[in-house]
């Protein structure tokens, strides 16, 4: 009897710790209970703005939906696009490659987004989880080549000021504009200032000057073979140099510190990027994003 009571006691204690934590991770209703035998499908009447984090007003949602649909139509219904916000990524993808990008990829795939046979298109996901706020662009099918490292960085650079200011609507409007440019030209044209071109001219002049002067001075030096002798090395008696003793005394040490500018490859906010990763449903995606 005591053993039975002990087992019941332990079970109660364990359930007090384990059941609440299991209950805390309640996945969204669209997330399949078993992802192992998932098959891709084309969803119907899918919303192009899914604001589960409730960061857009109804009017903003309507305007964004209009803009997304216009973009999809502009490119012949070839590339899908969905704006998705949520309060968390529910820990999905933790420990996997491009862990931040697995949840938006799952959302895209498990809801049946994508155009054509290879489900082309992309999702821009905003996670509003406290302490883990980030956005991520995940692309699939024919959209993947457009989501190169440089383009994802350019997208992130473009929307980062809006995201940091909390202007999520403005960020998405900017995102759609930039994505339109990417689908049209293959890349986002960098905005160059007069200073950039002036820098190029100055660099060209400086390098040219060094090349010109070094070539000219070496040829002029070659013309002059007359010089004063500084050394008497030719007149040292062979093997006459004797070093009887060498005494080295340490005096002091200087330490100088130079700041190294961080590499610009990670972009302004430090994008993480993956050229190819898998969703939980086995779909292949490319993309990247930043925390804010």
């Amino acid at each position, binding site marked *: 009897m005591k053993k039975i009571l002990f087992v019941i006691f332990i079970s109660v204690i364990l359930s007090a710790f384990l059941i609440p934590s299991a209950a805390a991770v309640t996945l969204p209703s669209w997330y399949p209970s078993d992802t192992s035998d998932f098959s891709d499908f084309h969803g119907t009447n899918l919303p192009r703005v899914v604001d589960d984090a409730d960061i857009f007003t109804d009017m903003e949602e309507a305007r964004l939906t209009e803009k997304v649909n216009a973009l999809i139509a502009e490119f012949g219904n070839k590339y899908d696009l969905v704006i998705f916000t949520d309060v968390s990524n529910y820990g999905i993808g933790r420990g996997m490659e491009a862990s931040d990008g697995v949840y938006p990829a799952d959302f895209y795939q498990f809801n049946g987004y994508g155009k054509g046979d290879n489900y082309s298109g992309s999702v821009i996901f905003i996670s509003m989880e406290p302490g883990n706020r980030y956005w991520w662009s995940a692309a699939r099918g024919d959209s993947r080549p457009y989501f190169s490292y440089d383009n994802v960085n350019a997208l992130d650079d473009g929307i980062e000021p809006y995201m940091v200011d909390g202007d999520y609507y403005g960020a998405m409007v900017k995102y759609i504009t930039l994505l339109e440019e990417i689908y049209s030209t293959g890349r986002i044209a960098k905005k160059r200032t007069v200073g950039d071109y002036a820098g190029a001219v100055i660099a060209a002049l400086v390098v040219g000057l060094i*090349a010109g002067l070094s070539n000219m001075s070496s*040829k002029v030096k070659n013309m002059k*073979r007359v*010089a004063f002798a500084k050394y*008497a090395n030719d007149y*040292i008696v062979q093997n006459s140099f004797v070093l*009887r003793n060498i005494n080295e005394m340490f005096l002091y040490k200087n*330490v100088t510190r130079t700041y190294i500018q961080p590499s610009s490859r990670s972009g302004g906010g430090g994008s993480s990027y993956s050229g190819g990763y898998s969703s939980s449903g086995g779909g292949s995606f490319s993309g990247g994003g930043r925390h804010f």
Partner: protein
Amino acid sequence: MADTVRCPSCNGENPAGSKFCEFCGADLNRKPNTTPESERIEEYKCPACGSPLVFNTDSGKLRCGSCDNEYDVGTIKQYMKHKTEAEFKWDLNYQNALNETLPDMVSYICKSCGAEIITDGTTAATHCPYCDNKVIITEKLTGALKPNGVIPFKVDKKGIKEKIAEFCKGKKLLPNNFFTQQMIDEVQGVYVPVWLFDGTLDGKVSLDGTTSSSYTTGNYRYTETSHYLVECDGKMDFRRVPVDGSAKMPDDLMNSIEPYDYSQIVPFDGQYLSGFLADRYDQDPDASIPTASQRMMNSAVRAFSGAASKYSTTLRNNGLNLINPTVKYVLLPVYIFNCMYNGQKYRFAMNGQTGKLVGELPIDKGKKARAFWIPFLIAAAIVFLIALFLLR
């Protein structure tokens, strides 16, 4: 609480909580120096920053109040020896070595440059080999000092044009018409008076030595430079370091046709002057000592620095002494001639023993400009195109 903390050494403002000064590296938590003024040893300065050093009774070392470095007393005494240059004491007594005089010979004196040329009675000088002046006066020379030796001419002056052509190979800035337009005046073989100095440099050389290493932590690159006093004790023998004894013969021209093979020095005989001229020295060994000393010292310091090659070194103190110095007076064979091109005179000299030819050549202004502008334009265009590609 203050946002910044002031460095006690350099007064630089540092973020609160810093341990070391960002500007001078001093310990920000160091207590101010409370050593009484009377205990300071003012005559010793810190090698790192030049501030006065103070004897620290705890460590038994000299401590700098500004940068916190500590030094052994012996090291600092050694270091603070005055920086000096070598002043060799040449006890040559060369007059004893040059006590013989030449038999009576013919002397030509140039009224233009003052050169005194001597020769045997059969050789006539038609112009001065140094300044090309044609007005020279013949006198009978008596009492000239007899050289200790001479290297006779071994190279014939015939084929000098071919020698010049060979010398001009690879000289990209030479005017195209130099070979057709240039005129060579008379090629004159001259025995140039030269002092040959022998001696041994013996003693200590003190060098300031540094070693550097770098490492990166976080976003900072740290460079550590350690400073040492390196004392080298040794010796080095020099033999026949030449300095020409003629004020008219340009030293750089004479230096540039070195070296001579001194094993071929033979006792002087007037017959070697037949067909050649000889310059009479007008600078005695005392006037030539600084030049010889400097060349020997530079070579010795370079050798000692090479022995301390793990450091980057600069000379601090030269304590070398010259032992057993001797000097000899010899005549060395040199062909001297001028090339006239576009109204300009270009002087050449050729080693009469080895045939080594030196001189300055005219520079074509157009070629010189092209040597600058062509690489300038190519390099600038390439860099600009690369920059445009990166900016697109």
